[in-house]
């Protein structure tokens, strides 16, 4: 299975359906996350890729309990996160932090950088062994900002600088794991590279574990050790990064990879095209059987009837597709 026993974070059968209401009646559910399982070992990065609306962000929010999932288990360091309350929950929050996609929305416009970075320290009363101000300045310097920035407001910074502040806030509590919800997709390409390199450096220095959510395949290849491909609330393929890129199994993964633009037009024409068909269907009442079957070019008879099961095709390389089923 995808789940390893010695992992830092284990997610088992996570499900979150949002009811769709019309007047007083529930007419359906948005199956944002529908039975997702995976695990991440300490110090590794798992990249989660997928189109918009496939449930990536819901997954991130459910793991740190900003959203309460309907079903499933989340184990962090052996403890079931969904059962935590009060002080234990606070302790979990100290160890797992999140960085959001939009650095313009994630910082309170009425607080100075000092106040923003002081908030986590104040909330957890952690032992930092020095003056709070000194600690905050050291955080700023770590993310590449200067102490002169301390008493300024967020609107005085660029997008990249704001994202650095958001990362500094997440790092303030010396967490063990960061959930990065598209941390670079709102930034310029040059700034993206700086932020990604910084995140990689912090991972090495602090042995951080990352759950890196993105729709950018280039970014995910650069930062991740493992990749999980999500489609309509389910993981359809999972494996080591290079293995996924060199030998994609699931038709959806193939389609995604073929959609990466190639700079050379000749090469682009020659490249075997896995032509994507249509748009992802609505996550309300997704198609029966394999959810990808209406867009799949390799579709076989049973695809729209039975849901395929997870199979390990290569070592540690899993997919959910009838083409690889042994039956």
């Amino acid at each position, binding site marked *: 299975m995808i789940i390893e026993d010695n992992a830092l974070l284990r997610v088992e059968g996570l499900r979150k359906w949002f009811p769709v209401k019309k007047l007083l009646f529930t007419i359906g559910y948005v199956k944002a996350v529908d039975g997702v399982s995976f695990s991440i070992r300490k110090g590794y990065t798992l990249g989660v890729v997928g189109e918009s609306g496939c449930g990536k962000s819901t997954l991130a929010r459910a793991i740190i309990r*900003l959203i309460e999932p309907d079903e499933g288990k989340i184990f962090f360091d052996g403890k079931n996160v969904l059962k935590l309350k009060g002080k234990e929950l606070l302790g979990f*929050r100290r160890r797992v932090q999140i960085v*959001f996609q939009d650095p313009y*929305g*994630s*910082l309170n416009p009425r607080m100075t950088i000092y106040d923003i970075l002081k908030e986590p320290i104040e909330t957890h009363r952690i032992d930092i062994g020095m*003056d709070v101000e000194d600690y905050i300045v050291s955080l700023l310097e770590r993310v590449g900002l200067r102490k002169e920035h301390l*008493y300024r407001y967020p609107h005085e910074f660029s997008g990249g600088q704001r994202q650095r502040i958001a990362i500094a806030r997440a790092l303030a509590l010396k967490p063990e794991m960061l959930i990065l919800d598209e941390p670079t997709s709102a930034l310029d390409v040059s700034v993206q590279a700086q932020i990604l390199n910084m995140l990689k450096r912090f991972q090495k220095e602090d042995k951080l574990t990352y759950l890196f959510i993105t729709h950018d395949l280039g970014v995910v290849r650069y930062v991740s050790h493992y990749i999980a491909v999500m489609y309509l609330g389910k993981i359809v393929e999972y494996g080591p990064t290079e293995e996924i890129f060199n030998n994609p199994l699931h038709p959806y993964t193939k389609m995604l990879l073929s959609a990466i633009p190639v700079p050379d037009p000749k090469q682009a024409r020659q490249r075997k095209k896995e032509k994507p068909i249509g748009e992802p269907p609505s996550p309300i009442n997704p198609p029966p059987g394999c959810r990808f079957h209406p867009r799949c070019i390799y579709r076989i008879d049973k695809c729209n009837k039975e849901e395929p099961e997870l199979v390990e095709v290569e070592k540690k390389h899993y997919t959910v597709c009838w083409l690889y089923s042994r039956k």
Partner: protein
Amino acid sequence: MINNVKSYIKTWKQRNEAKIKEWRLMLEVFKRSPLALTGLIFVTIFIILGIIGPYITPYDPIKIEFSTMLEERLQPPSLKHFFGTDEYGRDLFSRVLAGARVSLMISLAVMAIAIPVGLVLGLIAGYYGGVVDEIIMRITDVFLSFPGLVLAIAFSATLGASIWSAMIAISLVWWPGYVRVVRGQTLSIKQSLYVEAARAIGVSTSKIIRRHILPNVITPLIVLATLDFGSVILVSAALSFIGLGAQPPTPEWGRLIADGRRWFPEKWWYTFFPGLAIFFTVLGWNLLGDGLRDILDPRFRRKIEFKEGGK
């Protein structure tokens, strides 16, 4: 490294550099808006008169001088009586000056009741949602479904005609508007990423409301309250005009207009000057409110800043 950090963060001025800059910008926007400045001047005069008005009147605004009543009665404006006199020979200038206090008192009392009630209920309804929200909002809907003035008249008539009942009646009508505004603002801020980030950090609910939501709710509330000040003065004058609210001999602008109606239009000054007082006061609050909205909107402020940079 630690030492030079310390030396940098010493003075208050450096610490609050960004805040000072922000205040400067606000002042700058204000200075560039002649309308807001006019509003501020009118409102300042009104407030000063409301505080010291009754002490600086040239004549007693309430007492009737029976000895001179007959010859002083209903005199047109002159150097002796700037606004003329009423049917009892009282100086109307003195009565209008003294009337500022009643209007100020009523409007302040209404704000002092309606704003906290609106703030608390709006924050609760907006942040917690669900059943609590439903209950609070349906009750406010009931209040909002009547025209404000009609409801105020009904309350005021039930409570008996006096300044106090007018205050209570107007407050009862006024709070639902603030609940709406605060709830709406709370709902949108609650879903902002910075509130989510605070929750992810583990900040307690009460701190999230105090630190993240309240400061962002209070700005539109200040603007709305400023704009409403004029309306409250109008409604209280209307109540007094129809005989509810302030009772004779209390000098109240609405009441003065009502009393002067009998002599209109020959003795025009009797209704004209109290009307003028209401007009300028309400106008002043509205202009100030409009100005504040621009000043407190950071986006508007930025525009000014950029223009300045281009020079």
